[in-house]
């Protein structure tokens, strides 16, 4: 194993981890807010990626500009989905039934994409798709750097929103103790809806970041949901910093393990880490009692 290859793999791992962190952030938020397992999260990622691709092929503009449309759209869709569908599930069986409900939504999105855009595999053609910067002999692809930047900005914004604003306080209160929050005068139903919208808005950003450097097709979301679920369990369900740290660690580990073990075995790192977490620390590494800290 050569030095430059090690450095290159480390950089690729960090960039990959950043993307994982962004893609997993929304998933852990839904669970924190509502105890909802959102199987359709990755389907929404692919939907956002398709919208970015469609936007670029129609207008010729940079796919990043599609965020102006998709972020509010996804926020509204998330709010609507929570108010109209998820809030109608019985609290006693919410977590389990949410799996079924969101699984159905994932299938509807996949089918809809196939119907509208066919199963043909698409890729956004960018003038800078193969451009790269050099750093100590290693190469950093511009598109991966942009995706990483998007992830960092969105996660920071999400963190500040939750920590520093009244809405964030209300959301955290709802996460920590819904009844107590209601006693304090917080409209927890509305807040939960907004929380869900926020999660879906991260899917819009994540999907666009993904579309910059990926070939997309309607069933691609099945490849993503497993690793993302593993990340949020390891990070501690409901904890955004936990998900971010777990994503970075797993991204780098996966990338480095590929050198000696090859792609097939390196992929198993997610599941091995998941099993180990469930065996020795089932609450995850940052969750504490479910999602009480941020």
């Amino acid at each position, binding site marked *: 194993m*050569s030095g*430059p*290859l090690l450095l*290159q*793999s480390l950089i*690729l791992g960090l*960039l*990959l981890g950043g993307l994982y962190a962004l893609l997993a952030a929304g998933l852990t938020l839904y669970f924190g807010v509502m105890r909802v397992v959102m*199987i359709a999260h990755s389907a929404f990622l692919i939907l956002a990626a398709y919208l970015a691709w469609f936007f670029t092929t129609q207008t010729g503009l940079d796919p990043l500009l599609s965020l102006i449309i998709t972020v509010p759209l996804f926020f509204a869709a998330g709010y609507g989905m929570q108010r109209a569908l998820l809030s109608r599930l019985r609290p006693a069986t919410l977590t389990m039934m949410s799996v079924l409900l969101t*699984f159905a939504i994932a299938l509807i999105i996949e089918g809809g994409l196939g119907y509208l855009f066919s*199963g*043909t*595999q*698409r*890729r956004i*053609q*960018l*003038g800078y*798709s*193969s*451009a*790269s910067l050099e750093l100590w002999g290693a*190469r950093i*692809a511009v*598109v*991966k750097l942009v995706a990483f930047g998007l992830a960092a900005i969105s996660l920071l914004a999400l963190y500040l929103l939750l920590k520093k604003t009244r809405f964030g306080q209300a959301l955290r209160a709802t996460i920590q103790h819904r009844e107590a929050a209601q006693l304090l005068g917080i409209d927890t139903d509305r807040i939960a809806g907004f929380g869900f919208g926020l999660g879906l808005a991260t899917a819009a950003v994540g999907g666009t970041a993904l579309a910059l*450097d*990926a*070939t997309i*097709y309607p069933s*691609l979301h*099945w*490849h993503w*949901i*497993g*690793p993302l*679920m593993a990340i949020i369990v390891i990070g501690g369900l409901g904890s955004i910093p936990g998900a971010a740290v777990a994503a970075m660690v797993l991204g780098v580990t*996966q*990338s480095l393990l*590929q*050198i000696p073990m*090859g*792609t*097939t075995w*390196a*992929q198993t790192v997610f*599941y091995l880490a998941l099993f180990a977490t469930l065996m020795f620390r089932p609450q995850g590494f940052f969750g504490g009692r479910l999602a009480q800290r941020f």
Partner: protein
Amino acid sequence: MRFTKTPTASKRFRATLAAAAAVTLASTLAACGAAEEGGGDDEIVIGISLPLTGDFSEPGKGIQRGYEAWAEYVNANGGLLGRDVRLEMLDDQSSAERVAADYEKLINQEQVDLVVGPFSTRLVIPAAQVAQDYGYLFVEPAGAAPEVFEEGFENLFYAAPAVANDHYKLLAEHILAMPESERPKTAAYASMDDPFAQGTAYGLKDALEEGGIKTVVDEVYPPNTTDFSSIAAKVADSKADIVVGGSQYQDGVNLIVALQQLDYQPKLAAFSTAPTETEFAEAIGDKTQGIIAPTGYTTKADYPENQEFVKFYEEKHGEAPGEDEANAWTTGQVVAAAVEAVECAEPDPDCQSKLIDWLHENEVETVVGPLSWDDKGRPQSAHMIQQWVDGEIKIVLPEDQAEAEFIYPKPAW
């Protein structure tokens, strides 16, 4: 993925069982009701089961279009032995259990005069087994993986120029014929863990290793891989003279972009399937120059049969045929050649074995050139090699079909 697929997989399995039970019942009832349905004296019935729904529905429909176009063409030109051709098509839903039951039904109950094959290795093997049990000739349009020819079938013929491992045959010969000073010294291989895709890359690998070109990277990735940056990092780090991808589509495209991002500049880059797809240039942009791919079929090959096929197909569909359509048409041509030569097309074992024997001993002119087979049904021809030249993919090998000069070394991408 593991989270969601496990419950659905078992659900799907149960659904399949239920469906299978229903089908068995339905076909038994049908058997009681319907008498023999085989072709009368004025028509030849050809039985086919195709994956018209399910995983392989896209290529399955391509094969269907090819078969239908061929039958129409034959009927418009006087039929086979003066009889009209009628296709009896069933949908196997991409399921290996269904496909065997389908051929059983076609041969046993409907007593079709001939059968031809479905799409893909996974369905061809069970279908060929049924045909073999009843002594039927089995020409198939898609089943190029080594397994197909290792089952001991004597009735099977693959109607395409070459099996997976021979796709790069002409390229290997061309590279090894280069003068010592120009010839590449090292090679990197990355291939999908799939019998077909991997077969193509490993065929070239075996030939080049034998010729003294050292393998410095040999990566195999699972079909669900979408991130190729780590594989690209390994290839780039090895500084191999040439890179070969045993790819399908998205993996080939993603790997090429990842290699470009790392500024790896090989002297030759060959990928199976991906570069021949129409979306390839849309995905890669203007960085395609010099990329190589083997192809089993191109509308531009100037065999007279091919020109006729392309013309007929374009008139009917308003667009050029693809490889799936061409393979189905080729299958039809092969069967027709045998039928015309031995002058029979009946279910009886005598006629079928005459057809089989004839194909083992003769060569057939088809849209992909003249085809002949070894005793296991492997075609003995070669894939053409295409290369991207100035934004278009062109035939570069063999030289007598070439539309452009072979570019080596590949310009920087």
